C-alpha cells in the first residue's frame, strides 16, 4: 500500500458541475410536446387534426350539457330550446330515478340503507382505516340483514312491508351490483378451487356449473328465471320477482369470477404449492396464507373489470320488467307531460354520466389498490 499523502493527486477529485442538456432534449413541456406530438410533419398534422376534433367534440358536449342547457323552468322552457339539455326534467324526475315507486313516506329507509352501505364500503376499502376486520364482519353479516329489514320492512318493527314490485331506479341497480359483487367473489374462489381440485366429483360439479353458465347469454338466464320457472314450480314456491334476477346475477357472475380467479391460481408457480405441502401446511392454510393472497393480487384488474361489466350488465334486468336505473330513465322520458325534442337526449346523457361515475370510481380504486399491493410485493 502506498502512502497517498506523499503524492498529491494530479487529477481533480471534485466532480465537474453538470452541464445543461442540449436544448432539444431538455426535459420540460416544450420538449415533450416536440418529441411526442410534432416529431415528424405527418405526426404534426395528425396532432392538429385530433386536437381540433377533440376541441370540437368537447365544445359540442359542453354546449349541449352546460352552455345552452335549460336550468330552470318547465316543459315549455325546454321545448323552446331544442339546442340544450333540459335539466329541470332530471330535477323533477330525480326522486323517481333514485327510488322508483318506493312509497314517498318510506324513502328515508332507502337513504339510511344506502348511507350505512356507503360508510361500510368506505371503511372497508380505505386501507388505512382502523379495524377493517370489524368492517368486513359488519358489511358481510350485519349489513345484508339490516338492508333486508330496512328495505323490505318487517311489520313487527313497525316498518311496513314494501313490496319489491315498488322498488326501482338506482336502488335496484345498486342492489343488483352489490349482491352480484358480494356473492361472486367468494363463490368464484370456491368454484375456481373446486375446478382445480383433485376430487373428481367436486371437479365435475364445478366444471359443469361454470361451463353451463358461461355457455348461455345472461339474457337467457334471466328469461329462464323469470318466465319459465313460474310455469314449472307451484305458485307458492316461485321466488319473488326481484329475487329471481338477483339469484341469476349472483350465479352468473360467480361463474365468470371463477375463471378469473383460476387464471390467478395458475400464475402461482407449482413450486410454491409443493413447498407448502412439504412443510406440512394443510390445504386450507396453504390456500388462505400462500396461494390466494398472491393469486388474487395478480388478477385485481380482471376482477375489477368483471365488477364493472357486472355493474353495467344489471341494466339487462329491465328486459324482465325490473325497473332499474336505466329503465327508470326510459320510463321518465316517455312522460307526455315532459315530452319534447331534448328530453330523451337529456335522460340518456344523465344515465351515461351516472354509470360512468360509478365505473370510473371502481376503476380508479382498483388502480390505487394495485399500486399499493405491488409496492408491498417488491419490498
Amino acid at each position, binding site marked *: 500500500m502506498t502512502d497517498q499523502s506523499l503524492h498529491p493527486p494530479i487529477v481533480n477529485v471534485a466532480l465537474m458541475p453538470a452541464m445543461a442538456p442540449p436544448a432539444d432534449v431538455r426535459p420540460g413541456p416544450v420538449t415533450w410536446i416536440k418529441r411526442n406530438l410534432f416529431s415528424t410533419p405527418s405526426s404534426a398534422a395528425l396532432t392538429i387534426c385530433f386536437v381540433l376534433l377533440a376541441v370540437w367534440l368537447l365544445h359540442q358536449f359542453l354546449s349541449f350539457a352546460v352552455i345552452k342547457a335549460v336550468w330552470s323552468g318547465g316543459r315549455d322552457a325546454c321545448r323552446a330550446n331544442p339546442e340544450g339539455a333540459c335539466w329541470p326534467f332530471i330535477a323533477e324526475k330525480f326522486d*323517481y330515478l333514485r327510488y322508483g315507486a318506493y312509497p314517498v313516506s318510506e324513502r328515508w329507509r332507502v337513504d339510511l340503507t344506502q348511507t350505512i352501505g356507503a360508510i361500510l364500503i368506505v371503511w372497508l376499502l380505505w386501507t388505512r382505516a382502523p379495524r377493517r376486520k370489524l368492517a368486513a364482519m359488519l358489511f358481510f353479516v350485519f349489513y345484508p340483514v339490516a338492508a333486508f329489514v330496512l328495505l323490505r320492512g318487517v311489520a313487527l318493527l313497525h316498518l311496513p312491508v314494501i313490496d319489491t314490485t315498488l322498488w*326501482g331506479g338506482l336502488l335496484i341497480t345498486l342492489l343488483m351490483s352489490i349482491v352480484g359483487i358480494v356473492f361472486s367473489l367468494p363463490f368464484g374462489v370456491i368454484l375456481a378451487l373446486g375446478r382445480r381440485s383433485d376430487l373428481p366429483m367436486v371437479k365435475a360439479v364445478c366444471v359443469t356449473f361454470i361451463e353451463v353458465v358461461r355457455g348461455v347469454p345472461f339474457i337467457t338466464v334471466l328469461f329462464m328465471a323469470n318466465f319459465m320457472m313460474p310455469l314449472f314450480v307451484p305458485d307458492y314456491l316461485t321466488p319473488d*320477482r326481484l329475487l329471481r334476477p338477483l339469484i341469476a346475477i349472483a350465479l352468473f357472475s360467480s361463474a365468470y369470477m371463477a375463471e378469473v380467479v383460476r387464471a390467478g391460481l395458475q400464475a402461482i408457480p407449482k413450486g410454491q404449492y409443493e413447498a407448502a405441502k412439504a412443510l406440512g401446511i394443510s390445504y386450507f392454510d396453504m390456500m388462505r396464507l400462500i396461494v390466494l393472497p398472491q393469486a388474487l393480487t395478480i388478477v385485481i384488474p380482471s376482477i375489477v373489470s368483471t365488477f364493472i361489466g357486472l355493474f353495467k350488465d344489471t341494466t339487462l334486468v329491465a328486459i324482465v320488467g325490473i325497473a332499474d336505473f336505466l*329503465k327508470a330513465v326510459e320510463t321518465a322520458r*316517455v312522460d307526455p*307531460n315532459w315530452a319534447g*325534442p331534448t328530453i330523451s337526449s337529456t335522460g340518456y346523457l344523465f344515465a351515461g354520466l351516472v354509470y360512468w361515475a360509478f365505473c370510473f370510481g371502481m376503476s380508479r380504486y382498483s388502480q390505487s389498490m394495485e399500486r399499493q399491493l405491488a409496492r408491498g410485493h417488491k419490498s
Partner: protein
Amino acid sequence: MRSTLKGLIAVAMACTASSAWSATLDNVKKNGVLTCGTNSATAGFSLPDNEGKWTGFVVDYCRAVAAAVLGDAQKVKFIPLTPKDRFTALQSGEIDILAHNATWTSSRDMSLGILFAGTYFYDGQGFMVRKADNITSAKGLDGASICVTQGTTTELNLADYFRSQSIKYTTVGFADEEAVVKAYEEGRCDVLSADTSTLNASRLRMAKPDDSIVLPELISKEPLGPAVRQGDDQWFNVAKWTLYVMVAAEEFGVTSKNVDAMKSSDNPNIRRLLGVEGSIGKDIGLGDNWPVEVIKQVGNYGEVFDRNVGKDSPLKMERGLNALWNKGGIQYAPPIR
C-alpha cells in the same frame, strides 16, 4: 323453437293443475289485492308518475276491476310486463288479469290458453303527415316515402294497404321508434306510420308538434283489450262486464260526480246498471254496489279516456273509433238486464 316453447308451456300448464286457477275471483278476494300486468312504460296507457304511482288508460281499467271486486280502486299491485313475457305471466298465474296494449287476435284467443275479455281501445295503424303538404287522406299519399319501425307488422300492413289501393310508396325503415321520429323530423320521409296510440305520443316529442297532423284513416285493426286465463268463466265475466259497465255508464250519462244522485234516477237502464234493480251483483258473485264503486272511484269510459289519452291529457287523441256507438264510434255495451 316456437312450437317447442308452446309444447313446454302446454306441458307445464297440464302439470300445475288448472284447479288452482279456476277461482281467480275468490283468490283476489282472499288476497285483498288484484295483481295486474301492464305495459312497462307507454305514454297515456300505463306510466308511473313522479312518485312512481301508476297512471294511464289500462291502469285505470285495472283500478276499475279492483273497485268492482274489492271495493277499493287502490288495491292493485301492478307488474310491468314486456310484450315478450306478458302472456306467460298470465298463463303461469303470476298475474290475475292482463291489461296491456295487447292486440286481440284469433291465434292468441285460441292457442295461448287465454281469452280477451273485450276491447277497451280500438287502435290501428295510421299516418302522420306535415300540414304544409296539404294531404288530407291516405289516398293522397301516392309516391310518398314512409318512415316505419322495422320488423313489426307496420311494414306488412303498409304493403297490404297500398297494394289494395294500387298506390306507389317507398318505406324508410329504422330500428326503433325514436329513430323513426327523428328521421321524420329531419325530413327524410314525408309520412310517419305507426299505431295511432304511438303516433300521438311521438308527435309530442317533436320540436314542432303542431306542424303535423294525423290522418283519419286506419289501415289495420288493433283492438286492445284485457285478457284472462281460459277456464274461469266467472272471472272472465268480471273482466268483461267491468268494461261494459264503464261504457254503459257513459252512454247513460252516469259519471263519477253524479253516480250517487243517479241511483234515484227513474231510468230503468240506469237503475239496473247501478244495481238498484235487477241482479247485476248477485249473478257475477260481487256485491250489488259494484258498478257504483267502479264509476265513483274510476269513472265511466269517457272520463277515463279523456283523462288519460283524450282531450284532458297532453296526448289529445280524438275519440274516433272509441266514441260510443251512438256518437260515431264502435264502443258498445250489451244491454244490462
